[in-house]
């Protein structure tokens, strides 16, 4: 049982050298940038995607 977890330790290995972007005084990891962009996209999706419920009473 425990060895199953060893096998699926991770499908994608994030333990490699980090990738960083520089823009002026800003320095950010690609991963963090992806997380922040996802937050913005999810927020926009949450307020724009139609939400249909049963009719009012």
């Amino acid at each position, binding site marked *: 049982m425990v060895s199953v*977890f060893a096998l699926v330790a991770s499908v994608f290995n994030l333990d490699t050298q980090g990738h960083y972007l520089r823009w002026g005084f800003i320095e950010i990891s690609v991963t963090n940038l992806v997380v922040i962009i996802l937050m913005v996209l999810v927020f926009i999706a*949450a307020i724009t995607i139609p939400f*249909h419920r049963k009719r009012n009473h």
Partner: protein
Amino acid sequence: MGASKDSAVSDEINQQWTTRARRGLAKSFPYEKLLPDTQPSYLSSWIYVFGALTIGALAMIILSGAVLSIEGPTWWHQSSLGLFVNSLHLWSVELFFFFMVVHMWGKYFMGAWRGKRALTWMSGAVTFSISIAAGFTGYVSQTNFDSQWIATQAKDGINSTGAGAFFNVLNVGQMLMWHIVLLPAVVIALVAIHVILVRHRGIVPPYTEQAREVTP
């Protein structure tokens, strides 16, 4: 004679802390308010699920943290199951902050403090700050290189405020206990207050453009 004795007893009962608390709670938080079966029809957006998603992530943090507690703070370095549970704990924290931030953006743009709901906003904002502290004490409890670096860096900021005199980030024992006892208790209490306030005041209605007088 019997009647005045009865009314004296019931006066006494009316004054009891227990009686007054029960009546106050029943008046402010009847079950229909705590566990409603309808919602206002203006609630028609996916943004409304992000509060519940945040609480779901908090539940995962606590569950995964509880499993880590069963085996102790260094188990995850020696066991692949432990590493997996640690991963659950890390990713539920990432999701917790992700959903909390989207929830805060939504509540901000809804002006959700309107109509005597200021305390709801405030309790939420305090929870955000305390959650950061809770996460921080977790990061310095990892017993790995990351925790060594974070602790030796953070000490300068914390020491500069004077808090370093009693909050020693280099003391793993102290940091771990803040992380698994004190700060979770505070976060859970704050979330409970926050949710009860939401149930108490209801979800904020939409903006209207008409100015009118209102009785506070």
